[in-house]
């Protein structure tokens, strides 16, 4: 297994973002094939490939497309490039280096769902990516790869780039749709799901950047051949972003099913400064933390990570060495969720801030078991459908498993106070 380059084979070429380079390595061949296929045939090929969404939930992509009703209403395709979860930075690399692969994937996806207007929603901070993708879109229009009668094959698609404005919640698909409609990025109640009533109340598919980049390869290889890569239930490769205390953090494409330790020890060249591994957050900040022992048994596919009660999520691996202060890292993560809560639902709006404040108290050595118990109690009221979207659940998943698996790191902060009080008493200092 290990490294298998499908999407990123040419990513290190300094011209990989250009139309000329992309075409020179076989780009836009899949578009010719797909535009000669019937819509259902494209969807069935993607279904056959077993491709699962690379944004977070891992929902089967072909099935998602097949939910789009065959009505006369306009249909929309949106590429979700609002990458913003701590630890996650692989879509940025794809946007900056492989914009034409994304455009080609979008044309094929649009044909499959009978869509003629698509959008690429990119997080606002990614100025470089926005600029590169916008230029690639212009190049594609000029080359007849977008617009009316693409390549003379009778299919029309307009594509526009839209910049977000710094709200992590806009990565949630219904919040993204609201944002693209010029509203606050508030997640919507579901049902109806976007496939029935999405952008401008029309049927809409929202796919992640990496998901769409896989589409040309699936069309070129055929669904059955693609499915041979990876594992039975998690086919294909996955682009992982690895950060934290490793020697060579970065973006790596590997075959799904590759051992997690192989990713850390081979691709990332091991732990920084030769330190011991303490823990791994395997799929973005909301993925429950794995102990070093659990990480030793994990393979990087949806099922293996799920069997450890965590998730592959956004493909972000955060590696923590024996030096890492887990009270501090957990506090930082809780601060993120508190900052990014959209404020619609009380358990999230109040809960995330409360959890952050309690962790802040423990972090400063002013907490006790009471604060820790309260966090666990609060967690139960923030999860499992008490809110419109999963942001509150994400906060719980980032915090609770760390407290449960590394309890002593948190309780040792209480001890500091007790020790200090005892020492003061022994020294005759009045309480």
């Amino acid at each position: 297994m290990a490294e298998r380059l499908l999407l990123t084979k040419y990513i290190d070429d300094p011209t990989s973002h250009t139309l000329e380079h992309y075409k020179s390595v076989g780009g836009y061949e899949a578009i010719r094939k797909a535009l000669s296929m019937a819509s259902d045939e494209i969807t069935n090929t993607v279904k056959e490939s077993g491709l699962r969404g690379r944004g977070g939930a891992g929902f089967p992509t072909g099935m998602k497309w097949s939910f789009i009703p065959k009505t006369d209403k306009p249909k929309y395709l949106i590429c979700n490039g609002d990458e913003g979860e701590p630890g996650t930075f692989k879509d940025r690399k794809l946007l900056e280096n492989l914009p034409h692969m994304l455009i080609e994937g979008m044309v094929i996806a649009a044909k499959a769902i009978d869509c003629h207007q698509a959008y690429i929603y990119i997080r606002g901070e990614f100025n470089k990516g926005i600029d590169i993708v916008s230029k690639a879109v212009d190049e594609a229009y000029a080359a007849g790869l977008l617009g009316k009668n693409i390549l003379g094959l009778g299919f029309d698609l307009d594509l526009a780039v839209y910049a977000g404005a710094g709200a992590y919640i806009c990565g949630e698909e219904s919040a993204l749709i609201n944002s693209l409609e010029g509203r606050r990025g508030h997640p919507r109640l579901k049902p109806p799901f976007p496939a029935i009533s999405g952008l401008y109340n029309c049927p809409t598919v929202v796919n992640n950047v990496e998901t769409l980049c896989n589409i040309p390869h699936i069309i070129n290889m055929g669904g059955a051949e693609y499915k041979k890569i990876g594992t039975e239930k998690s086919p294909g490769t996955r682009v992982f972003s690895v950060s934290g205390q490793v020697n060579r953090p970065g973006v790596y494409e590997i075959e799904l099913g590759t051992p997690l330790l192989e990713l850390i020890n081979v691709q990332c060249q091991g732990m920084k400064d030769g330190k011991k591994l303490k823990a791994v957050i395997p799929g973005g900040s909301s993925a429950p933390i794995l102990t070093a022992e659990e990480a030793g048994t994990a393979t990087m596919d949806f099922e293996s990570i799920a069997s450890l009660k965590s998730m592959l999520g956004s493909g972000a691996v955060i590696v923590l060495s024996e030096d890492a202060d887990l009270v501090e890292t957990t506090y930082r993560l809780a601060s993120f969720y508190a900052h990014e809560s959209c404020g619609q639902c009380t358990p999230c709006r109040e809960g995330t801030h409360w959890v952050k404040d309690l962790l802040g108290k423990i972090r400063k050595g002013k907490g006790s078991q009471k604060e820790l118990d309260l966090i666990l109690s609060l967690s139960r009221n923030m999860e499992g459908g008490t809110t419109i979207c999963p942001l509150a659940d994400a906060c719980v998943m980032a915090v609770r498993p760390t407290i449960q698996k590394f309890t002593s790191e948190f309780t040792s902060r209480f001890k500091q106070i007790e020790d200090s009080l005892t020492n003061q008493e022994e020294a005759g200092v009045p309480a």
Partner: protein
Amino acid sequence: MAYQFSSHNEATFNKIKGQFPDKRSLILPCLYFVQRDIGYVDKEGMEYIAERIGDPISLAQVYGVATFYTMYNKKPVGKFHIQICSNISCYLAGSDSITKGFCDKLGIQKGDTSTDKMYTVDEVQCLGACGFGPVVQINDRYHENLRAEDIDGLIAALRAEVH
């Protein structure tokens, strides 16, 4: 003279307005136009946006959107907006020393603007460059793998851009 889009933004506005079936979608791009022109979004700019997009978009709707998103500055910032990522991966890479370094060198606190209106220092949540931390965004540009000893050179380079 009352605020109006710069000629570049006016051209962009005319280019993109046909891209959306509902003109409400123009609110976010227009807020960026105002911010690029004057450095932040003020009431006058928001009123202008509501007027340019036209009925049924009101100032209240534009204001509601502007106040939701963190990238729209609701008050003036320095010529260089220094935003330091403080979340998990950048923290593990030493972002606290970067924040302290910028504040100490510029003689300001987090969230403040220097008296000469040149620099604003803010700590922000994840910038999506976690493998290359600590990362700092200065205006539109990312600076990655920063070390405390890089700060003097970075500030000098910013000063040189002005002079």
